[in-house]
């Protein structure tokens, strides 16, 4: 029975929360329902992790655990196939944390809080569905479910040039999903040599039947399709505008989770299913993502809007994710997943703080702020911590992720990979430049605007969101081996597929 | 003198062409309506005439014309009502000016 599978509850709980929100009368009920939903989801995430570890410890060596499938469209052999490996578990946990913190960060959402939370939870449904599914069609469906609410969340509750941003974001991502759709259908029709076409990832990978000439065609399609969501140069421009206009929690969810769908899809679908083309064509995308890394960092240096700075920083860090994935070895790919976790948490933290600061000063222009550390010490300290985590300070997750990526990338001894890796390394210096620039201008120094002296520090729900995220970032940074091992082992089948192409 | 089919059809054709010309060129909604009625009546005449000359024993053509005349009357009433309402709203019944609902 479908209800016996623990994974389905990752979709059921958001849907129930949605239903609960539909009957809420006032903001208190909305908050209560959302907090309950997020907490239950978080508990479920932790429970899944424990179960997963126990099964692995008991020696269950299957590629995916908690598998199950239920037919829902016979003619195309589309099933609701569920299953998770260590990577999905990590991503699910990340999503739980971000959603949890996101709920607290949008505590005082105005106007239409109920509708806002409903879209928020619909987006979450899509995200969770994407990570638990292993059927191409189901994944794609949930992917779309996650994208559409973004339009409304930005368009209605956003700030600044929100209509433009929302439209741009939606159009670019829709364009990407068109490519993706073609890619997925192409994969489906070559999924099997003997005519038993399937949408199931694992079966497709096992069959390994996609002809090489088709791979050359389908790999770029799927990779770019997901790469757009992963903010790959030159398809990244939706991200700065989208982030700048989105409300706090949406930025958090967006950078924290949604952009991760891109990276996750890239290796789960593009690389895993089409290893031959991945090996042959990786260099093109390596160049593009390498550019992303450096380019994002440089662009961030001269921005003056806080959100733009972090959006470009996201471009740089997400570029690092795709960059590492394309290195096609276990260490670098593990680093990529760590970077996804780390970037998700850090950026969520950043956007939460920016939202809180913006909510007080009503400006995001760093030239108009100064000395905020004296006025709101909690937010200031939080921002410094987020900044230090972002520039890769040991003890925070960013360092671990970046180092794993660099060590993995350096395993390629040829000049091409070396040069790109060293180029990517330089990004950590540039990151330090723009982070310290912001911190110095905004938080330190004398108070720039006397009106700011009357502002207040964070209140309890804001502190709660910030502390949750800081604890996660520091936890991941201080005890990295826990997740590292879970992720590292999960890459074995993918690396095997790559080796056997 | 015997009335031939052609003697009916030529006035009807002229009437229809007048209607088409009026429909395309006139800007006043009432005039357009009148042109429309002209075309309709031309067609009615054709119905009756063809019925009379091709199937003399049958009455379907006549009935169809009657039916069309009735509907045309209802339609005219409806359109005039719309035009009056449009006039009330826009103080104008020139179709070049009435683009409010277009975009």
């Amino acid at each position, binding site marked *: 029975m479908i209800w016996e599978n623990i994974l389905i509850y990752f979709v059921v709980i958001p849907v129930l929360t949605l239903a609960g929100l539909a009957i809420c009368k006032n903001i208190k009920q909305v908050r209560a329902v959302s907090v309950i939903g997020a907490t239950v989801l978080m508990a479920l995430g932790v429970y899944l992790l424990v179960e997963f570890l126990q099964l692995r410890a008991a020696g269950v060596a299957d590629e995916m655990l908690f598998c199950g499938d239920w037919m829902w469209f016979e003619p195309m052999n589309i099933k609701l196939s569920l299953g998770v490996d260590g990577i999905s578990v990590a991503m699910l946990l990340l999503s739980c944390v971000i959603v949890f913190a996101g709920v607290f960060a949008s505590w005082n959402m105005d106007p239409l809080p109920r509708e806002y939370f409903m879209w928020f939870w619909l987006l979450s449904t899509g995200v969770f569905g994407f990570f638990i599914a292993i059927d191409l069609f189901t994944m794609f469906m949930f992917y779309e479910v996650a994208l559409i609410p973004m339009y409304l969340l930005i368009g209605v509750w956003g700030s600044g040039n929100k209509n433009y941003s929302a439209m741009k974001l939606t159009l670019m991502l829709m364009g990407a999903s068109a490519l993706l759709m073609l890619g997925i259908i192409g994969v489906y029709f070559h999924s099997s040599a003997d005519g038993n076409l399937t949408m199931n990832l694992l079966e497709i990978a096992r069959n390994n039947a996609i002809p090489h000439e088709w791979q050359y065609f389908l790999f770029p399609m799927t990779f770019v399709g997901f790469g757009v969501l992963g903010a790959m140069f030159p398809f990244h421009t939706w991200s700065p505008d989208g982030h700048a206009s989105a409300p706090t929690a949406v930025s958090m969810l967006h950078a924290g989770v949604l952009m991760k769908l891109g990276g996750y899809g890239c290796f789960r679908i593009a690389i895993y299913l089409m290893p031959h083309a991945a090996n042959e064509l990786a260099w093109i995308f390596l160049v593009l993502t390498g550019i992303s890394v450096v380019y994002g960092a440089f662009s961030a240096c001269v921005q003056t809007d806080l959100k733009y700075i972090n959006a470009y920083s996201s471009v740089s860090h997400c570029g690092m994710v795709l960059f590492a994935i394309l290195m096609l070895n276990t260490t670098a790919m593990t680093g990529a997943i760590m970077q996804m976790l780390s970037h998700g948490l850090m950026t969520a933290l950043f956007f939460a703080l920016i939202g809180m600061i913006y909510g007080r000063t009503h400006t995001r222009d760093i030239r108009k702020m100064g000395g905020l550390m004296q006025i709101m010490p909690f937010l200031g300290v939080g921002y410094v911590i987020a900044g230090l985590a972002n520039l890769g300070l040991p003890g925070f997750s960013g360092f671990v992720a970046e180092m794993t990526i660099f060590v993995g990338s350096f395993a390629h001894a040829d000049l091409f990979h070396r040069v790109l890796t060293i180029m990517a390394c330089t990004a950590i210096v540039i990151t330090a430049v723009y982070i310290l620039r912001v911190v110095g201008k905004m938080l330190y120094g004398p108070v720039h605007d006397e009106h700011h002296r009357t502002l207040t520090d964070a209140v309890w729900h804001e502190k709660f969101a910030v502390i949750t995220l800081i604890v996660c970032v520091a936890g991941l940074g201080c005890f*990295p081996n826990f997740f590292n091992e879970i992720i590292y082992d999960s890459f074995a089948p993918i690396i095997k597929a790559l080796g056997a192409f | 003198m015997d009335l031939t089919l052609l003697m009916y059809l030529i006035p009807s054709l002229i009437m229809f062409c007048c209607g088409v010309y009026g429909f395309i060129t006139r800007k006043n909604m009432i005039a357009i309506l009148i042109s429309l009625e002209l075309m309709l009546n031309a067609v009615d005449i054709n119905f009756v005439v063809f019925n009379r000359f091709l199937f003399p024993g049958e009455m379907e053509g006549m009935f169809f014309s009657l039916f069309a005349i009735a509907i045309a009357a209802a339609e005219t009433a409806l359109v005039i009502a719309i035009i009056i309402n449009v006039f009330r709203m826009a103080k104008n019944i020139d179709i070049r000016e009435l683009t409010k609902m277009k975009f």
Partner: protein
Amino acid sequence: MDFSYSYLVLVLPLITFLFLGLMGTRLSRKTAGVIGTAMMGVAAVIAYSVALEYFFGADQGQIVDGIRQQIIAWDLTWLEFTENLVIKVGFLLDPISAMMLIVITTVSFLVHLYSLGYMQDHEHKYEKGLQRYYAFLSLFTLSMLGLVVAPNIFQMYIFWELVGVSSYLLIGFYYTLPAAVSASKKAFIVTRFADLGFLIGILLLSFYTQTFDFITLTSNPTAAIATAGGATFMGCSVMAWALTLIFMGGAGKSAMFPLHIWLPDAMEGPTPVSALIHAATMVVAGVFLVARLFPLYCLEEGTMTVITVIGAFTAFYAAAVACVQSDIKRVLAFSTISQIAFMITSLGVARPELHEGVGYMASMFHLFTHAMFKALLFLCAGAIIHAVHSNEMSAMGGLRKYMPICNIAFLIGCLAIAGIPPFAGFFSKDEILVAAFEQNTFWGIWMMLVAGMTAFYMFRLYYKIFWWNNPDYGHHTPHDAPMTMSLPLIILSLVSIVAGLIPFGEFVSWNRADYHIHLNMTVAVSSVAVAVVAILLATKLYLKENSAPAKMANAFKGLWTAAYHRFYMDELYQFITHKIIFERVSRPLAWFDRQIVDGSLNGLANIANSASYAIRKLQSGSIQSYVYVYLIGALLLAAVTVICLI
């Protein structure tokens, strides 16, 4: 008893940091300070016991066949990159790490104690943010200890970054002052840039040797070098590149030319911080790093030459700049750069076959003595600044009458750094000169010249502060510092007097065997003679207020101005970062992003839009035009049909 209790040395500062960082604001400032100092005291006691037990304790395998062994007290797996490349956080005990344990905890404890007195304003109220200050000091101590006891290069890198950030936080302690903020930023970014080299070096090294472990790397250096299999890049062997890049990291932290620019600015931080971080401990991390990998370095002749040249040039450059600075902390900062350059040069000229690797021992010896007397000088400077509320020499003069303790302590520090026997600096500097002469007479003479300059600018500083003239201090006469501040001065003075007599070579040498120091009389006598001449010159010029220095400055105006502006290195950097990186790279990139990348997308959207607008005309909604088109179409069709039928 084994060394496993040594984890306390790291854990105590960590607890202090977390406790003061999280709970700090609930405590009173004084309580926080006292807790921080007390915890540091305990940590220092434990560190001493570890170090002393390592050197003198009952045999637990510390010495085998007359060679001191490297002992890993404990380790924990922290992160596994691959099967081979595993980071283990651990505690490596060997002569240099034990020596560093003593140096760091001593200076750190004294600075903690000193800060209790220093961090007060005129009304003897503790300064705002003292909890934060002590938390950061603990963080720094933790990181520095973690750095020196690192058993693998990656742990060193981790703590390397952490000392960087604690230095950043402490320089920017007065975060409302723009100068402090930009100084802290500069320090972080410059060292971060250097660390990029360090990181790439580590990656290269670990890629070929497949290990991070210092013991594995250094126990068989020839094999480690050979793993690269003769791979070359741009004409040099890959290993030479790796080691040079690692040295770049060290050069950044140790403020070697041209990466020295952050250190003088770092003096914007509180003076005790300068004493601890920017004089005694953190800035010698680069020296320590090279010493740690010395067996590898000494196999790469090219890299050693680079190190020697950079060290020797920096020593001279910094000494030249120090001669003309007017801010007393800047003088001390350049003096620090110069002295560290001495250590670096000493490592650069050290060869195992030359005089049993005297350079290595000399470098470590100088590190040890320098930490003591330079901390002493900085703490004295702190006391002086505290008394006259200014960093500028012009605001001082004749202070010997008002601050006797400080006067004597400072004089001891100056004598030590100038290399006058029997003070500590004499012995260590002498060994460095011996090492330099062993390698090449040119370097020997060069370094001796720099040593003379050292004596000159230090005594210039001393006379300008304590003699020179007698300005009117008004009703607010300077006086000696309170006991919390004076006690560290006295302790460090005593150490600076006797530290040179320690038979250092018995403890530390490049192959960890006994090394007997014997003075090379020729070098010793000539270096003392140079120092004395320099001191006499300084006495002549600066003992009493006179116009000779100003005349000299005018006579060599161009040179003097250039030196005063530190030979325009800062301006050069400013130009590169702002004019080139920001204006020529970042801005065009941002423009490119907005206009070209985004613009092309917007253009695409606009094309789609205008195409839609164009097509929209066809769907005008005007029935008349539909009918018109329809009619024409119908007539055309009819015509075609008719033509076809005919």
